[in-house]
């Protein structure tokens, strides 16, 4: 037995070394690329097509490492930048979550280096999306892909069937909750225990208004944030959420919405793709504002929070430098962007894309884009405003607040402490 183990062992070890050491066929340039278009992302097909097209245009091999985002993948990317092992081109978040990427000093500033040399790259972008990418030091490090928007996704047919008016104002919204409860349909789909993110964002937006929402926590806890979290408690006490909401993530509420067990779903454009079979019977509306709310009806949560980062090493590399720019130009071209928009129902960031010309978009997806385009104001989500651990403190706190174990003030005060600790190192 030992000798057979020995043999297989040796064979395996040798083959491992062999496979590890042999380099694949060589191309003029090898590029390592990471994007968030992995797995079941609606745009992964459009992205893969764009990559193959690029490979057929140039003597280049794209080593594509795109994967579905979860916390461990995010940590890997953050660490790759810290450890000087970043991909040549990375698509990643450009909001607060980008700080480990940008602080690593391993990405090129478009403002300083790339735009002066390639002004056409800057020119192809719409002004707003590009401006949103400005980091705290007024540099742009990542140029945007498509934008997202959030809203109240509505199962219109349920409203019609039970003769309930659409929640276009607060009164209707409350009526809808009461009426759906009578009909044994869950009014609002949300997992307060695990993924209360969307309801937090919407509740704070309507209660705090854009200005307080954007203030973050550094100058104290805004009253509007407290009111926002208390609003969630109020809705919870009205039985607006599923009975087991405290043990739900985002998957179940969405699944229940798809199966018409839920009437209203606060979520983002990425959910629309997953709900394609409901296209004919759903619409998307802004979250209504309660009378005491500081928000304005029609103000929505949206933005451009992901972009392409170019590695400094790659940019300064003789061969890679030029190729990586070519790839960025290709991926941000009008044609590729239009394909991506069509796939993920996101907001275009480059000029010349008319959403109404894209045949692949459904009515509700166009309504979503309109919602964003016609919004009275656009606000980035709460987690783009405060540090990661502080936001998680609020997320974890929601269950305690709605159950009356902690007050909104307590949770936000402790989130603020965490925020201040996180910011202490910044200066």
């Amino acid at each position: 037995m030992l000798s057979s183990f020995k043999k297989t062992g040796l064979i395996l070890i040798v083959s491992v070394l062999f496979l590890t050491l042999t380099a694949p066929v060589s191309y003029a340039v090898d590029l390592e690329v990471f994007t968030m278009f992995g797995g079941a992302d609606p745009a992964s097909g459009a992205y893969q097509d764009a990559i193959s097209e690029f490979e057929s245009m140039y003597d280049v091999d794209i080593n594509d490492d795109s994967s579905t985002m979860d916390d461990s993948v995010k940590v890997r990317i953050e660490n790759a930048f810290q450890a000087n092992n970043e991909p040549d081109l990375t698509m990643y978040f450009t909001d607060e979550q980008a700080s480990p990427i940008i602080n690593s000093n391993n990405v090129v500033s478009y403002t300083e280096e790339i735009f002066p040399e390639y002004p056409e790259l800057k020119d192809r972008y719409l002004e707003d999306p590009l401006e949103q990418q400005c980091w705290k030091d007024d540099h742009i490090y990542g140029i945007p892909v498509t934008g997202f928007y959030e809203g109240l996704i509505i199962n219109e047919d349920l409203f019609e069937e039970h003769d309930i008016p659409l929640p276009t104002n607060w009164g209707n919204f409350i009526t809808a909750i009461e009426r759906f409860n009578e009909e044994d349909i869950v009014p609002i789909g949300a997992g307060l225990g695990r993924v209360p993110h969307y309801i937090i964002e919407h509740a704070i937006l309507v209660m705090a208004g854009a200005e307080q929402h954007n203030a973050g926590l550094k100058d104290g806890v805004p009253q509007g944030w407290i009111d926002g979290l208390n609003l969630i408690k109020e809705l919870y006490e009205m039985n607006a959420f599923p009975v087991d909401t405290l043990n739900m993530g985002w998957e179940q509420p969405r699944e229940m919405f798809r199966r018409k067990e839920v009437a209203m779903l606060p979520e983002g454009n990425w959910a629309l793709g997953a709900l394609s079979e409901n296209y004919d019977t759903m619409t998307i509306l802004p979250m209504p504002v309660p009378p005491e709310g500081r928000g304005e009806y029609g103000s929505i949560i949206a933005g451009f929070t992901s972009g392409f980062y170019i590695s400094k090493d790659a940019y300064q590399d003789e061969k890679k430098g030029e190729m990586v720019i070519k790839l960025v130009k290709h991926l941000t071209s009008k044609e590729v962007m239009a394909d991506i928009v069509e796939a993920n129902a996101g907001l275009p960031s480059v000029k010349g894309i008319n959403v109404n010309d894209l045949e692949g978009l459904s009515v509700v997806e166009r309504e979503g884009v309109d919602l964003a385009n016609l919004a009275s104001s656009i606000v980035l989500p709460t987690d783009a405003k405060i540090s990661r651990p502080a936001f998680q403190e609020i997320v974890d706190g929601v269950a305690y607040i709605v159950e009356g174990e902690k007050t909104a003030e307590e949770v936000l005060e402790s989130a603020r402490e965490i925020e201040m600790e996180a910011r202490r190192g910044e200066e």
Partner: protein
Amino acid sequence: MMDKLKKVFIKSNIGRIFIYAFLIFWALTTIAPLVWVLNNSFKVTDEIMDSPFGFAENLNWENFQVAVERVDIIRSYINSFIMSGTATILVLFFGGMAAYILGRFEFKFKKFFTTIVALGLLIPAFSTIIPVYDLMIKLNLINTYLALILPHTASNLIFAIFVLSSYMSSLPDSIEEAAIVDGASRFQIFTRIIIPMSRPALATVAIFSFLWSYNDLFSALILVSDRSVRPIVVLLNEVSSRYGVDYGLQAAAVVLTIVPIFLVYLLLQDYIVRGLARQGSVKE
């Protein structure tokens, strides 16, 4: 009274029936999930949600087709086998050697080494993954097979040493003594006596080392994420996404990851059984 009951229970067929009833009950609990997963892999999500525990109405292979498109499945199987297989063999070799020493020798620093092993059992993977990642970058091994083989070998060695040294320590001394009289060296004793006699324990260690290495999605996502080297478990990650829930697809992915390891398990299980038969202490 108790004694009498005990006698009735043990001697009679009633006792046997109870034993079988209990063993069968437990077997049902362990088989049911497999059947459930396999069954659901042939359903679309709606069918799963409507009757999560009902039988699939017809064999629907669509989930498997979609799953196979997500990853380069043959390549991933090969990657998995190379990485987990190599790690397992290294574990058996080096673990067997260390266990022989710790199980059958007395020496000065023995306590030190046993403490290290106990310590090793306690080190949480979540806290070492980032230092290991940095180390792999420094060694220029990230996204190579070794990036996963080396840490997997280390963590499985701990378990291997634990189980093997306990097993080896209670093998009778007489056989080893006889070999010494015959003029065998320590190495010969190890390879010709201890290893063959520890066969059932080695097979047990092999099974679990392979299983853990094979099923470790977390380290794989961080250390070997590249398409050319990633193992089959990443399929599980590729089918779960923030864009939709597809229970049927997830079940199909689970089936695809289980099938090969299942075969390995049955193969190694045979080693244990043969070991048992040879040792002859268990009545077949």
